[in-house]
């Protein structure tokens, strides 16, 4: 047990745990963004299939919402990079 503690202390002193945190942050935020934008894509396809003449409106709204979700995901990425 003391050996594990010493290894963790050594890693923390060299900034290793911070890097693991940054990696986790980047990965998890991208997963969140992927799920969110995937949902938008699914609903966009369903909407266009139901009413093809509304394609223009649906596309514009979908792109704007995708950019907003991506903005939220890039919060996490940006802060992870600031730490990194």
């Amino acid at each position, binding site marked *: 047990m003391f050996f594990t503690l010493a290894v963790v202390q050594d890693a923390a002193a060299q900034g290793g745990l911070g890097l693991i945190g940054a990696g986790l942050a980047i990965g998890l935020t991208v997963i969140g963004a992927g799920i969110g934008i995937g949902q938008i894509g699914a609903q966009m396809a369903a909407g266009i299939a139901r009413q093809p003449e509304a394609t223009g409106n649906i596309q514009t709204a979908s*792109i704007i919402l995708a950019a907003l979700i991506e903005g939220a995901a890039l919060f996490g990425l940006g802060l992870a990079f600031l730490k990194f």
Partner: protein
Amino acid sequence: MSLLSTLFQGGQGGGYGQQAGYESGPEGLGSIADIPDYITHHLEDGRYIEFAGMKLDLAPYAFEPLHLGSLTLDFSPTRQLVFIFLAAFICIALFVPLARATMRREEGKAPSGVANAMEGMILYFRDEVVRANIGKDGDGYTPFILTIFFFIWFMNVLGLTPFGITATANLSVTAALAIIAFVVTEVAGYRALGPVGYAQTVFFIPHGLPGPLKPVMLIIMAPVEFLGKLTKPFALAVRLFANMMAGHILILAIVGLILVTQSWAVGFGGWIVMSAIMVLELFVATLQAYIFAMLTSVFIGLIRHAH
């Protein structure tokens, strides 16, 4: 010595080399551990401009910082500042002659050339962005929204040109733009709602609340509402900053990988991937400028119609 002659003298600006302790070119990138320094060196601000192998040192043009009590404001030119002014100059050079030509043109005649293209975009912004969000009496905000869009758009796109610097990849620049948007939004709300109505947006009391609970509600909700006003410009700033910075970090990471491995296979594959990412970057540059302008108009509309 004028700025232009220094530029064409091929980096005789003097004294640059020790600025960041970084050597450009493949000799400076020994291993993958050098790539983060390579990325930050290309993204952060500095007192020099690189152009096709020539370095223009901006340190000789530095002037004394402004001292306001304990605050020191340094307005000396840095490379991001130069590109901010370049984007502003392009905006002015594009739209002031356009406005003059529009005033001089006869009624009912259609515009031609550049005026035609710009007028299409201006009318799109007036109808779909300003009037849809702020309402018909919000036409006075159209120049502001248009300025935000075109200024941010030119800054983003200038960063994608060869040897261009992205000014919006700096949190200070996007924070300044967001603060300006915040001030305009709050002043618009104050003018539309009056002092009492504006105070009600912060000290919000729902109807039908029993008497003793009202002060409690005020004390709890007022800081929350106040912070809620501040999160919107914060989100605007960080969204634009993170989008621009992330795109450039991606490109620079691949370039760094190519420079480190120095192999033809990695170079060719990296070239294809980088081309695709650059196309995406162009799209994101335009989209983020549009989103900034559209969200600003949405916030102005929301606070004007708050009652």
